[in-house]
């Protein structure tokens, strides 16, 4: 019962194919002249031949040309002949007025085919070799026609009628202006007169408008239908002008068409040009790709109406429901997504892969693959931020796939869980991964969630390797790298002999995993395109199907353009599928994140740049936005806000429609940072609140965002000198991070606590916090962060009195290489000031001996902090400078420094007075 499939690839005869047959007849007339009648030269003749070859090879394409489009194409290749050709074509088509005409036409066609022994032919004779491409095409057409029932012939006839009529409504704008070119046109005009001339006048105006519209609105049409579909097409491809009817394009409505067709969008007039199953499947696949790539910027309603139409046309093609699911998923329509997902799997039972095989006996022994439904449902809940449901469903999926011994699905499910667990922080496993959770149950439930995750990751990786699921292996390596990045490995066994283990993360492991995950590209670069039958539908279902990316990317030129060459030759495609590229790309994002954590700013920037430049085509817009965000953040740290905001503007234009995205987040972060520095505390608080509401209210979801928001909240309070409140917020944040095992964030919070104590004057209390933060940094290899913690520690010692200056200055000098090499403006400024302070508070130090030792860092600090507009610290630097100058008796310079100090102090105290350029430029979301 699960779907009644027609044999794929059925070749049906359509009006377009009839036109091609007519052209073939012109190309190879039964007469025996080397250059037949209408052609003036051999090259002209050959051009038509090549054109027909290209058309024949694309005859299994998803969308067929309409008559007017065909005529436009003909014009481009035909040169002067064009009028004769198109005229002949329309004349022949309109002369087919009864079934008998069709019969005669097709029996005439037989004449242009050579016999089986046509290997010996005269040079002069033009006879189609029955085994050539064109000959095969002709034979297929003949066969398809002969198979038609009488009703079928009648339908073909009426379809030809519609085909001609539609074209007539759009031909005149092209044809009439040139009507005095050749004598043939007189005939053409006469012919038109015989038809609906009164319609032309009306039509002309509207059509011209439409044509203009079309020229501007055409979008580039990337056709990456599956390889199998284009098995024929090797190097010649019909130019994009032929693929006119892309779905996004508003359809030209002709008054001849049945009004109910207006809803059709870009598909077909009903029943006229039926496509084969493969064609539609390929189309759907391509659209699915587009949805995943563009996310919410994909046109929802337009596509939905196309899908509805398709569903009406092909009720047994259940894939349509899946596309509807994807469409609603990416537009955050939960009920519709749920409904469509269930509907799809109810109908298809999970067995309708791309390489589906018709079930031999309807459903008797095949039990369907409903575990895939569970997997998808789990992913959907994950997408909508329902972690508990997602885990429940995925657990069920694990069980069901074990029951049905569906190893592939099990592997995918496990890695889905692996991806889910780190995203969704779960404080304890009780009630979620209960004893029934089989993959973990064997080890016992005494393990922490991290350990369970680790075990899961290992198993899932092993499983994927043994099943030879290359993409899965790569993505598991990635997940492993992410895990290693933030987790300290502990011995799994709580008893028995323990190997001595350093409680640290291992950057080498991360690198190893990342390298392993990138190996996939070489796997795919070497093997040619063989359809791998991973055939599993996760949300990555489409990604995991091999398709020749980039092989059929057409540069779109509008049909009226002066492209004399109607077809161009595409280069041989690279055989690396888009999904693989995407995986490799995301490994670069992980690399960037890793280097960010480890504290190498240039390497992080480099990796983000690589991603943004090399993987733009294959990545989803969300990932790309992330890479952009990283780059812009880098700018803000190292070049100040002005440049960062300029870059942000560009990024915002690029990701226009992505509302709740990384870019918005980034904007809020930058603005908050900036208002903190400039002392706009009210604005800062407001921004911080806005950041907070972006997070989902469900516990355990969007943890990153939540920690970020409360961290910023604490910092705002600190800047407002509300030490108690700031400490309280930081404290509760620490508890939360501890609960959800966010160790890296813990280091951050501890440092903030140290800072709070430092600012409130309790340096002694601050020191333990700073030390704790340091040890966290050490075990997670957070080098830059460690340097910043060291700096805070030094500052703390420094504020304890002059006996500790030496200790402080050793600490600072120890951290300097890291800070100067990789630190941002703020960190460097702070370090310089701290260094100067060290010297100044050292009783054995005398300014007069070598004033530049102090002045130089202060100058550096003041420059950098001015770029950053960090008024408070800049004022401090100038203050120190003024004092030093005063001591040295350099009065002029002292006045200058004092003036700068005053300026910054005033700006800090009266934030409103300052003209606020950026807030004006960038209005708050």
């Amino acid at each position, binding site marked *: *019962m699960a779907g*009644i499939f027609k044999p794929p690839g059925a070749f*049906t005869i359509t009006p377009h194919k009839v036109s091609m047959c007519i052209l073939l007849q012109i190309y190879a007339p039964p007469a025996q002249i080397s250059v037949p009648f209408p052609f003036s030269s051999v090259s002209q003749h050959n051009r038509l031949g090549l054109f027909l070859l290209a058309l024949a090879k694309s005859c299994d394409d998803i969308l067929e040309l309409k008559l007017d489009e065909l005529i436009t194409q003909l014009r481009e290749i035909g040169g002067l002949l064009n009028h004769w050709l198109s005229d002949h074509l329309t004349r022949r088509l309109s002369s087919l007025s009864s079934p008998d005409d069709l019969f005669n036409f097709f029996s005439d066609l037989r004449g242009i085919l050579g016999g089986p022994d046509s290997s010996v032919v005269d040079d002069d004779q033009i006879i189609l070799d029955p085994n050539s491409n064109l000959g095969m095409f002709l034979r297929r057409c003949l066969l398809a026609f002969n198979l038609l029932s009488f009703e079928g012939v009648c339908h073909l006839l009426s379809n030809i009628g519609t085909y001609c009529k539609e074209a007539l409504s759009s031909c005149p704008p092209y044809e009439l202006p040139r009507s005095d070119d050749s004598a043939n046109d007189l005939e053409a005009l006469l012919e038109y007169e015989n038809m609906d001339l009164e319609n032309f006048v009306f039509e002309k105006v509207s059509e011209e408008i439409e044509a203009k519209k079309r020229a501007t609105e055409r979008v580039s049409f990337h056709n990456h239908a599956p390889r199998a579909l284009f098995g024929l097409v090797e190097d010649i491809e019909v130019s994009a002008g032929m693929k006119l009817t892309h779905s996004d394009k508003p359809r030209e409505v002709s008054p001849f068409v049945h009004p109910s067709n207006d809803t059709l969008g870009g598909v077909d007039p009903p029943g006229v040009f039926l496509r084969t199953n493969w064609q539609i499947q390929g189309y759907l696949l391509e659209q699915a790709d587009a949805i995943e790539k563009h996310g919410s910027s994909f046109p929802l309603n337009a596509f939905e109406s196309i899908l509805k139409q398709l569903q009406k046309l092909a009720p047994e093609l259940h894939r349509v429901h899946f596309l509807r699911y994807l469409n609603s998923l990416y537009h955050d329509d939960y009920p519709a997504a749920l409904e469509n997902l*269930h509907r799809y799997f109810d109908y298809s*039972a999970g067995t309708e892969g791309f390489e589906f095989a018709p079930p031999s006996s309807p459903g008797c022994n095949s039990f369907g693959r409903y575990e895939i439904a*569970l997997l998808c449902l789990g992913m959907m809940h994950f997408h909508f931020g329902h972690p508990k449901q997602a885990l429940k469903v995925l657990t*069920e999926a694990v069980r069901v796939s074990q029951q049905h011994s569906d190893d592939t699905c099990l592997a995918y499910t496990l890695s889905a869980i692996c991806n889910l667990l780190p995203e969704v922080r779960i404080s304890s496993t009780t009630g979620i991964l209960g004893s029934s959770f089989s993959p973990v149950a064997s080890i016992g439930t005494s393990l922490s969630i991290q350990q369970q995750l680790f075990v899961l990751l290992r198993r899932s990786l092993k499983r994927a390797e043994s099943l030879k699921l290359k993409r899965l292996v790569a993505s598991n390596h990635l997940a492993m790298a992410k895990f290693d990045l933030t987790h300290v490995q502990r011995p799994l066994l709580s008893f028995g002999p323990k190997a001595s283990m350093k409680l640290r993360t291992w950057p080498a492991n991360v690198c190893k995993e990342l390298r392993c995950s990138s190996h996939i590209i070489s796997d795919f670069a070497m093997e040619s395109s063989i359809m791998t039958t991973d055939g599993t539908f996760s949300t990555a279902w489409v990604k995991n199907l091999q398709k020749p990316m980039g092989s059929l990317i057409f540069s779109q030129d509008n049909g009226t353009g002066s492209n004399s060459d109607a077809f161009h030759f595409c280069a041989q495609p690279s055989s690396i599928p888009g999904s693989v590229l995407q995986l490799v790309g995301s490994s670069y994002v992980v690399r960037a994140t890793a280097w960010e954590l480890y504290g190498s700013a240039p390497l992080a920037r480099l990796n983000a740049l690589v991603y943004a430049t090399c993987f733009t085509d294959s990545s989803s817009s969300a990932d790309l936005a992330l890479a952009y965000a990283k780059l812009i953040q880098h700018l803000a740290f190292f070049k100040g806000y002005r440049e960062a905001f300029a870059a942000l503007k560009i990024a915002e234009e690029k990701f226009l429609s992505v509302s709740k995205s990384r870019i918005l987040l980034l904007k809020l972060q930058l603005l908050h940072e900036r208002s903190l520095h400039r002392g706009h505390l009210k604005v800062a608080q407001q921004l911080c609140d806005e950041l907070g509401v972006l997070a989902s209210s469900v516990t355990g979801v969007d943890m990153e965002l939540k920690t970020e928001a409360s961290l910023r909240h604490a910092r705002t309070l600190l800047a407002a000198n509300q030490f108690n409140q700031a400490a309280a917020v930081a404290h509760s944040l620490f508890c939360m991070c501890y609960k959800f095992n966010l160790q890296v964030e813990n280091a951050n919070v501890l440092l903030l606590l140290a800072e709070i104590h430092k600012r409130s004057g309790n340096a002694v209390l601050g020191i333990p916090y700073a030390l704790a933060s340091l040890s966290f940094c050490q075990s997670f290899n957070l080098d830059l962060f460690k340097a910043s913690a060291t700096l805070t520690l030094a500052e703390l010692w420094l504020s304890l009195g002059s006996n500790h200056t030496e200790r402080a200055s050793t600490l600072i000098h120890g951290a300097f290489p890291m800070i100067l090499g990789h630190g941002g403006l703020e960190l460097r400024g702070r370090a310089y000031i701290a260094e100067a302070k060290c010297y100044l508070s050292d009783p054995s130090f005398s300014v007069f001996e070598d004033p530049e030792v102090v002045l130089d860092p202060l100058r550096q600090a003041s420059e950098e902090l001015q770029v950053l507009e960090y008024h408070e610290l800049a004022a401090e630097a100038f203050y120190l400078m003024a004092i030093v100058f005063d001591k040295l008796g350099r009065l002029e310079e002292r006045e200058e420094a004092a003036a700068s100090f005053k300026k910054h102090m005033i700006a800090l105290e009266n934030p409103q007075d300052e003209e606020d350029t950026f807030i004006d430029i960038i209005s708050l979301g």
Partner: protein
Amino acid sequence: MGTTESCRNELRSAIRQLSDRCLYSASKWAAEQLVGIEQDPAKFTSSHTRFQRGSSSIRRRFRTNEITSTPTAGVSYVSTPVPEEDNDAVDSDFYLLAKSYFDCREYRRAAHVLRDQTGKKAVFLRCYALYLAGEKRKEEEMIELEGPLGKSDAVNRELVSLERELSTLRKNGMIDPFGLYLYGLVLKEKGSENLARTVLVESVNSYPWNWNAWSELQSLCTTIETLNSLNLNNHWMKDFFLAGALQELRMHSESLAKYEYLQGSFSFSNYIQAQIAKAQYSLREFEQVEVIFEELLRNDPYRVEDMDMYSNVLYAKECFPALSYLAHRVFLTDKYRPESCCIIGNYYSLKGQHEKSVMYFRRALKLNKNYLSAWTLMGHEYVEMKNTPAAVDAYRRAVDINPCDYRAWYGLGQAYEMMGMPFYALHYFRKSVFLQPGDSRLWIAMAHCYETERLHMPEEAIKCYLRAENCNDREAIASSPTCKAA
């Protein structure tokens, strides 16, 4: 409601007018109601035929005197349109010829005969014939055009021209209620439901006895809000309509009350009896349903309509002999009715021969692809045969035909639960309890789902059991495990 006498007269004239316009099913319905009116025992003895003849003379007189419709006090009298063709012998002759063609199902021929006629009646018949010709062609095309992707969307090609013509007629006020009915039908097919509703309301307000128009209107009222927003004249036919519409909206007790009220005047109407049975069936009063159907069959032994419901009841009560007798009877009456196939399928299912049963359900579906209960029942059979994917498919088709069919949703839930996917099944159970919150079995099934060892959500299970108990769980299944779980 008007007096029974006036009802009777209205119906009599309506039957003639309807069958004169070839609206046979409407006239059949009207005739059933006419016979269903309780006869005055005194008059009943007097000759039936003479009475009818008398009424026609009354009708004629009535028509000439007062034509305006006066919907006062719940009774509305609507003029009988004067057949203009009566005057012109030639026109009327054409009409007769067209009607004969129509009766022989030669629709295009009928339309062609009437091509130049301008009388309202002729125009209606021509349009109606064209519409039916288009429908016939559509069905043929549906088979012819079966492309590689399954069924093609064949359309009735007459709809456009019909819509154009009828809308101009309506604009010019040249349309009679029958024309309006046809216009509404065309609009409905074309998907402009709001206009269709307005037009149909106009039609039934000016000519309330056309049951076809009412039932089209009923199918357009999918929510209680739309039903309440209709601006209908207060005619006794409206009660029939409302009763049916309420039933469709699953407000069974309200609908039952309406039907019982109608039964006061139409006490012998088989239609009302069957509808009451339907309502009772939905309320799960199987004993009463059985009694009603026994009586129905006594009065109307060759009835096939609604008998599948009777067979469901017999199935539920496991009455082997009665079910086999019923199956035999309908088989002899008309074996190519979906209802008959369903009854036979039920019989085989009861006998435990599920393959045969599926075969008969399939046959029913071949006769009518949108026959809802056959899909659901076939799903049940597949569940019995442990072929869950097929069951899921069948149930899914049922809910896609009617998303309010809680049985099919429930079946889907059951099928998934059988496959060990309780969490997935919950979605379907939720759907079914949403549609039928008063059915304790659904709540209990959902509770079972929550209770399974794999899901283990006892709090939710308890909530479900409590709901089940609240809706008067007759079999008291809910009571015992509730205690256990609590």
